[in-house]
């Protein structure tokens, strides 16, 4: 954008790539370690680029019993929680950003303070609530817990994004006879894209990562999720780094796919030029 000299551009490029390398290195190291044999891992030397690779760590991990169940459980709980949090969050964000009503400030305060509760502390009451509602060992129960954990952030962030959409656009839609719902469907919702992506990423990560509640609420083996599966590697194999890294890769892949799918939306300022013609 601003004119730069050639030297400046080269320095910037090199620096940018350096920063990129620093950030990606741990992830890269996870992938390459997963491809190594125990002998390679124990040797005092290491190859930055894996010259010989083995897939044995991966086949070991996938053929562990119940891997498919764990994966399905994690996907169902996470995607369900993301969808519900987005829907409820969007419904709440629009009136918060656009309408004036009694209790609005109270609700905002509720959202902000709810975000501060240490989640490890809510454990015992949450357990009792879930037990009384007969939702222990249920994917629905765990999913609801995750929706609750992510809702405050979702509502808050989406409210900001709705506010960012120029009211003039919605008013123009009203003038053109779209009606409230039409305005929402044709104008607000599409412009909300980056906001929905940002919040869905947040709730995906929260739900996909959560370990403690998943471990204690899901006592039956066929209801457990991937973080619990990953932790079972640590105890079973001790310091089999290749095995653990392969399991970590498998655990990380769905999250990586999800992020890369939405990555372009994540950084686009879709509303930036929407008012100016």
């Amino acid at each position, binding site marked *: 954008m601003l004119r730069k000299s050639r030297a400046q551009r080269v320095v910037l490029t090199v620096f940018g790539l350096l920063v990129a390398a620093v950030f990606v290195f*741990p992830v890269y190291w996870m992938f390459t370690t997963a491809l190594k044999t125990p002998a390679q891992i124990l040797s005092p030397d290491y190859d930055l680029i894996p010259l010989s690779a083995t897939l044995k760590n991966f086949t070991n991990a996938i053929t562990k019993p119940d891997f498919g169940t764990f994966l399905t459980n994690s996907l169902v709980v996470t995607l369900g929680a993301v969808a519900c949090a987005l829907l*409820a969050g969007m419904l709440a964000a629009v009136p918060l950003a656009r309408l004036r009503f009694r209790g609005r400030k109270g609700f905002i305060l509720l959202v902000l303070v709810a975000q*501060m509760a*240490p989640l490890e*502390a809510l454990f015992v009451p949450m357990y009792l609530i879930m037990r009384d509602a007969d939702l222990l060992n249920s994917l629905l129960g765990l999913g609801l817990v995750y929706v609750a954990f992510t809702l405050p952030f979702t509502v808050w962030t989406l409210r900001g994004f709705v*506010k960012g959409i120029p009211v003039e656009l919605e008013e123009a839609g009203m003038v053109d006879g779209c009606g409230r719902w039409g305005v929402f469907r044709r104008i607000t919702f599409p412009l909300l894209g980056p906001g929905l992506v940002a919040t869905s990423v947040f709730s995906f990560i929260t739900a996909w*990562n959560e370990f403690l509640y998943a471990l204690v609420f899901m006592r039956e083996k066929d209801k457990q999720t991937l973080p619990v599966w990953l932790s079972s590697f640590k105890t079973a194999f001790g310091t089999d780094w290749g095995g653990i890294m392969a399991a970590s890769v498998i655990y990380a892949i769905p*999250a990586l796919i999800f992020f890369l799918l939405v990555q372009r939306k994540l*950084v686009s300022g879709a509303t930036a030029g929407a008012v100016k013609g």
Partner: protein
Amino acid sequence: MTSTVDTARSAGTPPPAARPGVRRRARRSLSDLATPYLMLGPAVLVMLALLCWPAVQVLFISFRKLDLGELVRGEVKWVGFDNYKNVLTDPDFWVISLRTAVFTVVLVASTLLIGLGIAVLMRHLAGWVRVVLQVCLVLAWATPIVATTTIFQWMFDQNYGILNKTLVKLGFDSYQGYSWFSTGTSTLTVIGILIVWQAVPFIAFTLYAGLIGTPKDLYEAAAIDGANGWSAFRAVSWPSVRPLLMLTTFLSVLWDFRAFTQVWAIRQGGPDGKSTTLPVLLYLKGIAGSHFGVSAAVAVLMLVILVAVTWRYVRLLVRSPETEL
């Protein structure tokens, strides 16, 4: 833009004076009146049932003696402020609180500085380098925490970790078998690097979105007025980034102060409790030690600290509904 929103809305509200059309207006505004509450309904319900109600219960539990026995028998035994006395008279609690405070401040400051730096950097990079950087940041961000803690344990491993292997190769033989987890400070440093590394991408993307949201004409105008890099940043970028920076500071304080998974997974608060932070203490007292009353007291104290620290900002957010974010 905010002021435009405001005038537009106030112009649209019906004047209070009685007019012929007032009946129709009143009826429409009745359904208008219900709309916000119906839309807030699902979110309020979930948050009340699964965040607020448990939080209120934690408050009650903090005034009860609730160990495993009481929990199993379903016994309610009120002890007044005993749990708080117990916690507050323990010198360890104050050491841990101070440690947590320092840890949080250092982490928040480094995350925001690095995040802002990268956001500005992204703005100036050529297209393809920017995409490479963004993909790398996304990869760091997206890798699940349980996996990244394992990666860091592996990289910092005493015998086979890449860090020690590299240091030995470079001639620092004393790092052969050196343990990065032998002192609290060094353990917390490793945990800090891990947390900052994963938190920076979100901050960088958020601030970058704010930066590119600034209309380009403003920069051109600033350039015509003779503003160079720094003063252009101060005059043009800063106003659009400032509210986002405050928001991300607020969120980072919340997240870093409550960071549990990483601290616990790396060394369970060790060696010898030297890397224990408040969330770990809460876990040790509660789920690990089955003193749920004491643990609840720690939780309430944590919440009090957080609210006290963030109060001014929260009040700002609630008081001025016109703030952009």
